């Protein structure tokens, strides 16, 4: 009975001298991996969003948080007139990115999405466009 008690004490003592794993968050930043699924971004090609409003991403989205409305531009091309993602409902599964046939969507390393108003969590097309 005594031996396991002493073993326990030994384990805690050795841990005392280990390097802590704590990340001092706001001052120390976590390392964002390449495949991290953060805030979405709409990719841009020839100075406009690549999205062709095919509705595949709202269809596949399990949280049903993407709203797309198609429109027609001057060259009679279909484009997304409205593209919104409600970040309060998004579960960051990344299915939308995989579903996109024209590779118009990606996920960035941005993860600090806190905000003050509910409406601020609905990201419009302007806010989603790749910087």
């Amino acid at each position, binding site marked *: 009975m005594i031996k396991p008690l002493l073993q326990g*004490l030994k384990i805690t003592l050795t841990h005392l001298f280990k390097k802590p794993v704590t990340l001092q968050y706001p001052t120390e930043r976590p390392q964002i991996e390449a495949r991290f699924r953060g805030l979405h971004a709409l990719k841009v090609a020839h100075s406009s969003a690549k999205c062709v409003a095919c509705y595949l991403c709202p269809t596949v989205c399990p949280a049903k948080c993407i709203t797309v409305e198609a429109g027609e531009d001057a060259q009679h091309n279909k484009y997304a007139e409205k593209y919104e993602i409600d970040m309060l409902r998004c579960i960051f599964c990344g299915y939308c990115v995989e579903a996109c046939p024209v590779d118009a969507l990606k996920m960035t390393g941005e993860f600090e999405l806190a905000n003050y108003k509910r409406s601020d969590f609905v990201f419009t097309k302007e806010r989603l466009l790749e910087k």
Partner: protein
Amino acid sequence: MDTTILGLPLIYYAAMILKVLVVFVFVLLTVAYATYAERKIIGHMQVRLGPMRTGWHGLLQPIADGVKLFFKEEIVPAQASKFTFLIAPLIALIPAFISFAVIPFGDTVELFGYKIPLQIASVYDTQAGRVLDLNVGVLYILAMASLGVYGIVLAGWSSNNKYSLLGGLRSSAQMISYELAAGLAIVSVFMLSESLSLQKIVADQSNFFSWSGTWYAFKQPLAFILFFICSLAEINRTPFDLPEAESELVSGFCTEYSSMKYAMFFMAEYANMVTVCAVTVTLFLGGWHGPLHPVLNFIVKVYFLIFVCMWIRATYPRYRYDQLMRLGWKVFLPLTLLNIVVTGIVIAAFS
């Protein structure tokens, strides 16, 4: 120098006030920084950092905690019995501090030709040429430890809350049963030293390297370990912190307490820990004897034991209540009784 009050020179009273102040401030600071050390040590044992933000490496954390608690709202539950509710934290806090009155924390020092023993309740007798202290010092400590129970029981009783009540009841049952074992564990020390005076017990342990004067921890290893464990149980430290078991009793007897009243319970808990460590050092680890300056020796030993308390807290889970009672009554009590009998036989055989 010739004026005397009650047969003692004025400098005695001045030194007394000084000693009380120094010890009080020392214990208070130790209590404050024990909370910090505990969070740091347990943090690092769990491979975390512990407090880091307030001041350099979180050094101002105890002060920040104190200020925070000070400005919290004082809440007295509507159906609580108000007087008892208000007085209970004090009843818990005061015995924790006044136990220090009989603990010798250093050799005698000479001030203006007057010898002052570094123990609050004591005086240097020039005629006899030795220090006179409370000759039942250990009994006094045990008595104070029992008084502390009242604070907790009354807090639980007066809060008008079933969690508090259960916490208070648990704590009284636990403290009473473990006090018995703790008291019996140190009986073997008295048998060896043939005195209840802490001065005498410390003097007995003055020579570490000879068998006759070594620490009682080596002569009475079983008593030492049992006393330390029972003391942990008596002051409600983990793994025996059932009175405030968060998972079942919210916060036990201090569920309804807020603000400074809560802080008082908190301080009482840590002051009790300091006191118990100091008593253990005095009884078993040679008191202030050692290689360094006497006072430093004492402080180092006490701090080491406090570290052990925190180490134990970081290691073991909490006992279940029936296990706790079984351990106290069926394991520790017979062991201490056996220890006394064996010690008695050995003493009788060698005298």
